[in-house]
Structures are given as C-alpha cells and as structure tokens.
C-alpha cells in the first residue's frame, strides 16, 4: 500500500493530462515521450554492436 501511495504521489493519474501545442499539432506529453523513446531505440539499434557478431557463420 505504501508503494502504491508513493507511485500515486509521483505519477498522479487522476489529473488532466498535459499537452504540447505547436500550430495545429496537439500532442500529449505521454505520447511525446513514447515517440522520443522509439526514436532513441531506433538509433541505438543501428549503432550498438550486436553480441556474437564476430565469427558468426554465414549461410550460403
């Protein structure tokens, strides 16, 4: 219960959501964070070395 109260204090879910406005674009902060995370994941997937890449057998 204490953990629940702590998480509820940190992440209040019963309030109005926050939104970003840019011209005709209206985007919730939550969706904006998800989009940023997807871009970060995409770039990391391209740049980070894949384990076991060296010495991997190539199929014909």
């Amino acid at each position: 219960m204490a953990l629940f109260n702590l998480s509820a204090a940190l992440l209040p879910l019963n309030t109005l959501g926050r939104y970003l406005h840019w011209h005709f674009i209206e985007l919730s902060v939550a969706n904006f964070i998800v989009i940023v995370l997807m871009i970060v994941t995409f770039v990391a997937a391209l740049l980070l070395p894949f384990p076991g890449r060296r010495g991997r057998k190539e199929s014909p």
Partner: protein
Amino acid sequence: MSTTEIDRQWTTRLRKRVAGKLPPEKLLPDTQPTYVSSWIYVFGVTTMAALIVVIATGCVLAIRGPQWWHTSSVGLFVNSTHLWSVEIFFFAMVVHLWGKYFMAAWRGGRAMTWMTGVVTFLTSIAAAFTGYASQSNFDSQWITTQAKDGINATGAGAYFNVLNLGQMLMWHIVLLPLVAVLLTMIHVLLVRVKGVVPPFEVGAEVRR
C-alpha cells in the same frame, strides 16, 4: 488410380508447390546471413513475442470476464499486462516499420511481405481501438462517444457502431485478432520464402 490422376489432385499439386517454395530448411533455418546480426533485426520477433502475450492475456480476460478484470487484484494485473503488452507490441512494430522502410524492404520481389505488414499494422490499430472501446468503464464511454462523430462522418457508422459494446467486443476478440494473427503468419512465411532483405550495396544500382 493412375499416376497421372494422382498428380492432378489438388492436394498433390498444393503439396508439391508448398514443398518447392518452402522446404523445411527454409521454413526453420539454422543460420542467417551475417547482415542480420544487428539489433535492428530483433524488432519483428519482439512484435510477435508481444502479440503472443496479448493473445494469451486476452484469452484469460475472456474466460473470467469484466467483473473479474475490474475488481480483483489478479484481474487488474492481467488487464494491465494485456494493455502493456499491446504498448510493447506497437512500440516494437513501429521501430520494425522504420527499420524496414529505410532498408526499402520491398526490394527483390518482397512487395507482398511489405504489404502484409502494412495491412497487419492497420488491422492492429483497429484491434487496439475496439479494445479501448470494450473496456466497459468510464474511459471506454468517453472514447466511444468522442469517436462516434468521426466514424459517422465517414458513413461507416451504420455498420460499425462504436456505441454498441457487444459489436465492439466481437470485433475486438474475434474478427480483428483472427485477421491480425493470420496476416502475421502469412507475413512470417513470406519472409521465410523470400529471405531477409539484404542491405543496400555501396554504389549498386537499385533494381525495380
């Protein structure tokens, strides 16, 4: 029955065609080309793993029903697992889509692989929407009353009534998952038939 008659049977012809296009070593390969050793290639299978969790938790929710998923702690946990596996499903699918888009993954006769992926994505959006519409809580009431005007503006409201909970639930748990899973299976089989798209070669001319 003569050999010619056996060869003309649809079962024989189908078996030969499937075996020719998808022999066991292609269906379940033990190696992949070296260019597949990159994190960008893991998001397709991540999407499928999330889909399995979505279907499994959805089955549990279907067995126990709304009273259970709204009131009991285990029900709330399974309901949340269903939601968060959908979040991971879409997250991984979008990164997979970006990766394949920039690889031009429709090259080399892979147009059907690309298009089945596109239609699966659109079907999944409809499945997610009908899921939000069939939560049977204030959130679903708000979403459906907001969505009805948009759907009615398209002219589809007479056939697809978002305020009809029974209809939305049937679309969500029968029709759309059936289409999404079938398309996913076809998509994966096409990847197995055509192979993973190779990267662009430096200076190579792109074949249309």
